[in-house]
């Protein structure tokens, strides 16, 4: 569970996050959507402690994040663009992470490693990997330590359809294990069937956080994509009125 209270962040002139108050519950898959620059990635980075907020508090499973980094043990993070040390080999990366996070071998979640067929590539240096393969590495790494919270930034961008399906299954599993999954994505249709909640952001503000069923009812649209599109139209209209 993640609870965010009155979170504010400003980058010089840009108000990246504007008074965000929100609670993400366990077993939820939350789609974080909004136009480019609406503050999605900043919000994620705040939760991860990579960006420090100007004001406000974030609680991860009841623990307020501050200087103590131990809360990140409960988080698996898949960045938008996975950047890794060029010279490091794939196998080394996983070994190193294992070294840093210290977890018994039998508790590790190697499912994605196997399904993405990453094991045979353990000898390859990271710099030789294609963008898609890097995404697979990032995804496998995020799930590797079996964390209670998963934060996936644009997870399906660059993944082939087959891998996307594998990842979706994985997210589905996580949901059924009562994990909290936070996903940002542009391509909404990809995640239609998984999402339990939609959080919509614009200009650093949270416009709404709604259950998907509620959203469908309100907009009368069945597809998540269309539902959002209709909201965005309203928003635009509201701006021009």
């Amino acid at each position, binding site marked *: 569970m993640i609870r965010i209270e009155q979170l504010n962040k400003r980058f010089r002139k840009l108000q990246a996050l504007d008074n965000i108050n929100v609670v993400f519950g366990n077993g939820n898959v939350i789609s974080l959507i909004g136009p480019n620059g609406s503050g999605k990635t900043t919000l994620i980075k705040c939760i991860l*402690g990579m960006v*420090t907020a100007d004001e406000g508090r974030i609680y991860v499973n009841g623990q307020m994040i501050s200087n*103590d980094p131990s809360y*990140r043990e409960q*988080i698996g993070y898949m960045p938008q663009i996975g950047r*890794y040390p060029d010279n490091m080999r794939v196998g080394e990366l996983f070994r190193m992470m294992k070294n840093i*996070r210290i977890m018994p071998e039998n508790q590790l979640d190697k499912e994605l490693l196997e399904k993405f067929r990453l094991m045979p590539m353990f000898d390859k240096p990271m710099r030789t990997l294609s963008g898609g393969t890097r995404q697979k590495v990032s995804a496998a790494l995020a799930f590797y330590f079996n964390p209670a919270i998963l934060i996936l930034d644009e997870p399906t961008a660059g993944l082939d359809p087959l891998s996307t399906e594998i990842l979706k299954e994985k997210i589905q599993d996580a949901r059924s294990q009562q994990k909290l999954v936070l996903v940002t994505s542009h391509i909404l249709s990809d995640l239609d069937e998984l999402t339990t909640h939609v959080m919509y952001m614009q200009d650093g503000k949270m416009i709404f956080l709604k259950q998907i069923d509620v959203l469908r009812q309100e907009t009368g649209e069945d597809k998540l994509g269309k539902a959002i599109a209709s909201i965005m139209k309203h928003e635009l209209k509201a701006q021009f009125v």
Partner: protein
Amino acid sequence: MTRLIRYVLYDILRNKVVITYALFLFVVSFSLFQLEENESKAILSLLNIVLIVVPLIGMIFTTIHYYNSYEFIELMLSQPLSRKRILLSEFTGVAVSLLCAFAFGVGVPVLIFSFNDTGFALLIAGGALTLIFTSIAFLASVKSRDKARGIGFTLLLWFYFALIYDGLVLLVLFSFSDYPMEKFTLLLSALNPIDLARISIMLKMDVSALMGYTGALYKNFFGTGAGMLFTGSIMLLWIILPLWWAVTAFNKKDM
């Protein structure tokens, strides 16, 4: 933390720059001892290497390493590791590898050809300068937004410590030549680690005698236990303060 340091070291050793640096220092030091007719002249030439090359290479290497490790640092940041630990591991990794390069490149020739007080002073000063400029470079890197700015900033700092500062000292000494400035120069020397290193090595080389009243004052000051403690503490401050500042800035930095 040692695990993290091990990965940093591993990464540095793999790109071979440090090894090249060590070999370069070794070849230069070795040939200086071979070419110069006497050992003290070689030490004097080596002094220039230590005062100019060690800070320069140390800073540039540190800055480039920092930016090349940016991905690694980002990756680590999403893990349950504190920022302080990440940065200190990076610092330790860089400092240890540069120190090893210096110890091999300059240390071995000095121990072979000039196994005496001056030699030791040179090694200790060189080691201290390595740590100091690694620390300063970390500060400059953390504070700058991108690699180009970082390297530019680093070069500027090097230029300042190696050259401009002494120019300013010369200016000050001439502007206030009517006043007794000897004690003041003691303070001035403490404000630039390169000067402090240079003066403490020169005092060991017994060049102090030709420095007249200033030299006698320096010898009386630096030669005593209190003076050595002073030099040591100032050097230590030069290592700790920039590093501490870098850690503080890194803690607040948005990645």
